[in-house]
């Protein structure tokens, strides 16, 4: 079975992309799946979340600039879990203006026939809408969209879906699109209404597990630990273990 390339994407910031990338990938790795996660955000927060704090290590930047092979850039982050950091030059790629469509195809080419021993390659996208996100969309077969339960997130989702449809048309492919309700605040009525709106427009695509907002999820990046390490008995750790099951088994609402 070939590696599944999944882009975790939402151009809105603060929706839980990196939190989802960190903890979902670790939950999958703990289940025995071989997972590589790529930090495509020049801020490098994914690496920090795994305890890799040096901003000078080259990563996917050198791969996309055709200086290194992707296999050379992997760091063993946890058992079964490899990390490719952003690297200090990733921002240069975001600012590329020359090269036409080819500047959007760097990541797909870099991954081509590499990492074939992996079950999943996840790409943690930046909260932007430039060349890096285009690269993720070229490379990915599947899209995982973390959402918050507020109105502006719905507005942003509308733009994102429009973009995905245009890429599907241009690339002549159909993404498998899943959504995950992250940072869900159960006590707010608007949360339920946003979720219902998502269910109305994305039937069978919203993963069955919601990630509830919690303070421990905000705390664990500072210790360089995933939630499964920081508070393994917490409800948030259980949310991510359940999310991994939902992701693997296509369990949807």
């Amino acid at each position: 079975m070939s590696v599944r390339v999944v882009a975790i994407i939402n151009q809105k910031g603060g929706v839980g992309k990196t939190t989802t990338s960190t903890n979902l990938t670790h939950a999958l790795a703990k289940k025995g799946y071989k997972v590589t996660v790529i930090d495509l955000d020049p801020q490098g927060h994914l690496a920090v979340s795994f305890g890799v704090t040096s901003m000078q290590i080259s990563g996917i930047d050198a791969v996309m600039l055709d200086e290194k092979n992707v296999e050379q850039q992997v760091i063993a982050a946890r058992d079964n879990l490899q990390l490719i950091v952003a690297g200090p030059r990733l921002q240069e790629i975001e600012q590329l203006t020359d090269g036409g469509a080819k500047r959007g195809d760097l990541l797909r080419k870099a991954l081509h026939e590499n990492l074939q021993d992996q079950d999943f390659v996840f790409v943690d996208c930046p909260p932007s809408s430039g060349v890096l996100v285009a690269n993720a969309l070229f490379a990915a077969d599947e899209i995982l969209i973390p959402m918050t339960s507020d109105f502006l997130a719905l507005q942003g989702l509308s733009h994102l879906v429009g973009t995905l449809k245009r890429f599907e048309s241009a690339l002549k492919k159909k993404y498998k699109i899943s959504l995950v309700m992250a940072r869900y605040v159960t006590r707010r009525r608007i949360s339920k209404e946003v979720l219902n709106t998502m269910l109305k427009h994305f039937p069978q695509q919203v993963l069955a597990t919601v990630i509830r907002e919690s303070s421990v999820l905000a705390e664990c990046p500072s210790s360089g630990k995933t939630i499964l390490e920081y508070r393994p008995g917490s409800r948030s750790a259980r949310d991510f273990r359940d999310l991994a099951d939902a992701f693997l088994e296509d369990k949807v609402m």
Partner: protein
Amino acid sequence: MTTKNNESLIGFDPLAWINDDDETPAQEESSMEQVDEISSEVADESSPAEELSSQESLSEPEITELIDNSKITLDDTLNINTVLELHGKLMQALKDNDSLEIDAANVNNIDTASLQLLVVLKQEAFKLGKDIVFDFPSDRFIEAAELLGIDNMLGVDQSAAGFF
């Protein structure tokens, strides 16, 4: 087309266009200008698209209403006025599922009628060989259950409440 629903907190639905037709909104409406520019370039240029392995289009997902009622969140206030509705909701959920997760994190006020209902639900589940778990019980929920001596029966004694 967007609509306004006066009873909803969502004044208009920005995703309504998805169901109106299969067309994407006008490209100039998108905030993702650069990424859209690249998608347009892909459509215009043949080389990257040619290199992509062709994929058959997946069929559209079947549109069915399937709401999971195996996880229920209790409201802030549970009293004699809400117990009948809650009874119906919980019994239906028990009928539909082999196990129920009831999130009691938000409970701020709960009266004896509601607690009795939860005990009955637990007993009913036991008889049916089904499982009910109360997740993240609030302090007030635990306090009320302790007061009636049913915290252990409901499985919400402090030792079981974990980190929260």
